């Protein structure tokens, strides 16, 4: 495995953790700390069977060998640069414990256990006594030695007898269905494994973090001593000591850990049947009204042959008849009579095409101010976004908004708070300004400044001048001399291919927020559309429909109008259900695993960032709250504390009002209950958007679910 890919993995983990704690609070500062991604996304090679595996898989598909985890410890320099070394490092470790657990196969693990010890002894004879822990680890797991098992990180966590007892207790308390005896009875390594999994729980129950780290310290000595390591344990222990587990971070994660321990994904979920197929990318197209979003989408589809000539001809003819010749391409997206009549998009349209490396799902959002709620509920599933900007004089300025917020700005902020990090800015209608470089640079300067303030990192923003009507720079590089004379960058399609594939988590219990309920003949009576956030689905799976709490059975799954046998995290699918009444399935609900229902609540504690609002937020302010696809009227019942922008610490308690650009912890009461999870448990269900009087007033994350409804 290349070092680059390792660094990549590491970067992702780091980022994940960082965001966990700081999202919504310090958007500006957030991305500055991150490493630049150094490699292209892609596959990793198993060191045993050289099988190519998907990035998201943690163990090899064919032989079950774990992916090399040196990355986790291989990052001394990178971490220091991060400036948050202690915290994130500990969390990375914690995470490595949790994340690798559920689909452990005993087969390859037994040999290395012994092998490793020998190896270790050998390496000492060679004079590696002074080697740092990470170096040691690398030696153990280097591919030439034919084993890349990351047993090492677990060694030092082998619990003391006390730990085992308390872990057992907590296991018995938490999941009575799994008696401890059975886990112990299974092969030795599995038993060990279980205990390791339980360790985080156990640590949380420890009252002081100091004592827990001390435990670890001792453990390391014990386990290492048995292998005659000489001085090495001390070094390892020192190393470990620096990694002192941050108690707080552990606490935040506790729930997640629980789930992983409890939930065992079935084998079919993990097996990647579609080896070699493209991974799915949900791409939202956003921007101010009339910037040409639908036309851009339509044009791309047409150029890629997704729209037949006949169909296109029909659109052109109809559009001409209505006297709206220029709207022909957008009609591919805007299908309802109402939308065509008025020439604007109202709801999010979905279209599919394949690029070189992605199966792209285009989510064409409405740009009009009144339809921002539709945009939110339709585009929260996005992994990346294209921000379309109108280059023509006056239109760009309108999008940026004079005294009030234009939709270019509002959408950019929303998209960022959806969790989207990568954005392509398509400067459209360049033909209207004669492909002027000055105009492009002006827009880049103006908008770039704003995007930075939203928290987009400069390196993850791609700027592309193009013209959808003139077909410049869409799927091929520009042909017009006026543009190609100064622009040599990639075209839009290449830019899409250069996006990093999003991280998918198949190993968690199913969560599918319902974006849409459709009555379609091909799908049967009740069908729901949405993106799988976690887990996987196949026909005949049982699912729990929340918030109604009814069980339904999956009948068929459709992706891009073709039925498929299995859907995994990240896929945007239509699922038809049987055994449930259509009235119980509403957009905004969630399909989940029957044993792991999502929480349904009507009172939430949020950490919010107030956007540029005119009217301040008071206790009692009435708002509309959007959480994934659900929307509900709500009111602010408490403003608990004001947070400092830079540090995230509480700067004052119970403030009177919240004004623009402040961040705070607030409590909201919803008129009706919605499916929601804390942000640390499930990000997709833990993001909230507050709107009032037609504009988005605050974005934030759910820090606590206060009132649970049975």
């Amino acid at each position, binding site marked *: 495995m290349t070092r680059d890919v390792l660094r990549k993995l590491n970067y992702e983990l780091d980022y994940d953790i960082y965001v966990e704690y700081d999202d919504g609070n310090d958007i500006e500062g957030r991305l500055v700390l991150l490493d630049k991604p150094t490699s292209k996304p892609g596959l990793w090679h198993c060191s045993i069977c050289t099988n190519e595996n998907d990035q998201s898989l943690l163990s090899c598909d064919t032989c079950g060998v774990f992916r090399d985890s040196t990355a986790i410890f291989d990052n001394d320099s990178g971490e220091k640069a991060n400036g948050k070394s202690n915290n994130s490092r500990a969390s990375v470790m914690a995470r490595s414990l949790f994340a690798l657990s559920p689909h452990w196969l005993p087969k390859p693990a037994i040999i290395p256990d012994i092998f490793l010890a020998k190896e270790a002894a050998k390496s000492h004879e060679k004079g590696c006594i002074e080697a740092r822990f990470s170096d040691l680890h690398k030696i153990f797991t280097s591919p030439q030695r034919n084993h890349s098992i990351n047993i090492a990180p677990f060694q030092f966590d082998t619990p003391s007898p006390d730990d085992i007892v308390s872990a057992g207790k907590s296991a018995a308390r938490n999941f009575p269905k799994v008696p401890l005896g059975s886990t112990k009875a299974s092969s030795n390594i599995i038993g060990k494994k279980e205990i390791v999994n339980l360790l985080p729980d156990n640590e949380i129950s420890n009252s002081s973090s100091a004592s827990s780290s001390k435990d670890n310290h001792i453990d390391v000595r014990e386990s290492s001593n048995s292998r005659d390591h000489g001085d090495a344990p001390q070094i390892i222990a020192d190393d470990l000591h620096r990694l002192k587990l941050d108690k707080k971070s552990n606490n935040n994660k506790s729930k997640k850990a629980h789930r992983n321990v409890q939930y065992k994904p079935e084998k079919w979920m993990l097996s990647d049947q579609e080896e070699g197929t493209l991974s799915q990318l949900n791409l939202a197209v956003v921007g101010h009204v009339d910037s040409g979003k639908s036309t851009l989408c339509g044009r791309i589809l047409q150029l890629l042959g997704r729209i037949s000539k006949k169909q296109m001809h029909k659109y052109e003819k109809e559009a001409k008849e209505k006297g709206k010749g220029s709207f022909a391409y957008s009609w591919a997206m805007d*299908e*309802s*009579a*109402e939308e065509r009549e*008025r020439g604007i998009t*109202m*709801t*999010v*349209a*979905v279209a599919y095409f394949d690029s070189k490396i992605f199966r792209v799902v285009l989510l064409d959002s409405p740009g*009009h101010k*009144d*339809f921002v*709620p*539709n945009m939110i509920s*339709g585009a929260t599933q996005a992994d990346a976004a294209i921000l379309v900007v109108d280059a023509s004089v006056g239109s760009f300025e309108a999008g940026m908004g004079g005294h009030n917020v234009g939709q270019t700005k509002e959408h950019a902020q929303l998209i960022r708070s959806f969790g989207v990090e990568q954005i392509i800015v398509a400067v459209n209608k360049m033909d209207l300004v004669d492909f002027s470089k000055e105009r492009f640079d002006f827009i880049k300067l103006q908008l770039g400044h704003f995007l930075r303030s939203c928290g987009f990192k400069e390196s993850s923003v791609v700027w592309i001048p193009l013209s959808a009507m003139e077909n410049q720079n869409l799927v091929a590089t520009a042909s017009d001399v006026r543009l190609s004379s100064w622009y040599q960058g990639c075209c839009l399609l290449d830019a899409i291919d250069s996006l990093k594939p999003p991280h998918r988590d198949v190993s968690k219990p199913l969560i599918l927020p319902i*974006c*849409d*309920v*459709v*009555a*379609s003949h*091909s799908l049967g009576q009740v069908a729901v*559309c949405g993106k799988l956030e976690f887990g996987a689905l196949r026909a005949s799976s049982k699912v729990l429909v929340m918030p109604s709490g009814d069980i339904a059975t999956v009948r068929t799954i459709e992706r891009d*109008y073709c039925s498929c046998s299995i859907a995994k995290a990240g896929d945007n699918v*239509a699922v038809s259900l049987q055994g449930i009444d259509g009235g119980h399935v*509403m*957009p905004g609900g969630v399909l989940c695993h029957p044993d792991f229902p999502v929480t349904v609540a009507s009172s939430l504690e949020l950490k919010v960032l107030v956007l540029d609002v*005119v*009217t*301040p937020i*008071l*206790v*009692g*302010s*009435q708002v*509309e709250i959007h959480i994934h696809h659900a929307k509900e*009227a709500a*009111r602010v019942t408490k403003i608990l504390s004001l947070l400092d922008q830079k540090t995230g610490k509480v700067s004052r308690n*119970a*403030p*009177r*009002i919240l*004004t623009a650009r402040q961040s705070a912890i607030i409590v909201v009461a919803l008129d009706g209950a919605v499916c929601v999870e804390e942000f640390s448990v499930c990000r997709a269900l833990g993001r909230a958007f507050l*709107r009032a*009087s*037609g504009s988005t007033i605050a974005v934030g994350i759910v820090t606590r679910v206060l009132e649970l409804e049975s």
Partner: protein
Amino acid sequence: MKLVRRDLVSNGPGSVKVVPEEDDDMWHAYNLICVGDSVLAVTVRKVLREMASGGRDAERVKLKLEIKVESVDYDKEGSVLRIRGKNILENEHVKIGQFHTLEIEPHRPFVLRKDIWDSMALDVLQQACDPSASADLAVILMQEGLAHLFLIGKSITTTRSRIETSIPRKHGPAIAGYESALKKFFENVLQALLKHIDFKVVRCVVIASPGFTKDQFRDYLLLEAERRQLRSIIENKSRLILAHSTSGYKHSLKEVLDAPSVMNLIKDTKAAQEVRALKDFFSMLSNDAARACYGPKHVEVAHERMAIQTLLITDSLFKNSDISTRQKYVKLVDSVKDSGGTVHVFSSMHVSGDQLAQLTGIAAILRFPLPDLEDIEM
């Protein structure tokens, strides 16, 4: 409400005889009648009588009873007012001290006797008997998939109907489903409109929504009216008004009432004044936050310093069963008036009053900034 007889001393004892006439009046009566007052009205009571043979016979008798009020219940959906208390008027069927529940009905007079007619009570009485202030507006507030039908009277807003339908977003072939779902949704709203809106009473019907839903609905409404020969709609075509709102939820109603086209229609009514006052408060809060305050504590402090220019207060605060609390607020209102400020008593049955109630029920716009309010805990 019709005032039949009035015999009272301001800030002293006295009684009035009134006849409630419409739903609004029930709300006024509810605000007027406090625990401790006495109410005299004609009522029906089931009376048990021992027969000579020893058997018992139940009979419904019409009686005139006066009761000492112990609790007042108001049902806002049905506009029914029930008063529970002990009888104080000796009667052959009902002894003194027996409990009875009076139901106040439209067009039935009742006599209300109070020990103290404070200024708030007199205000309510005067408002209730002023026929000119009624708005009588119907508002259909909608967004795709959600509609509310409100009737707005002088001092109450009633939610007559709520329609919620799931409307699929367009997904290729499902587009037909979208159209038919939208049709069905509009049909439901149309039925609600026919059922609840009486054009003889309502001055006009405002259709409000974000985007184009309102236009779509109006077109649908007129088309269907033509097709089915719905006379009431065809004849009143000119009384359908379109307005913009940002959502279909109830709190967007204040945006509708604030729209210029609607504002013109309801200019002098209480509903309009409340909306305007609340808007002033919010604009003051955003322009000069130190010149606006809310919450009982802050308002009290501001009042001590004679800083209150406009006081916004909901009538629910006067409804407090604790007499001393009521007295406190009445005094506050009086003294603000005395010192030259204006007072808006919001009806908690209107959307603006509802919002004020969320903001603790009391707020004020100040004459001069009081920045140190920030430091006083709420």
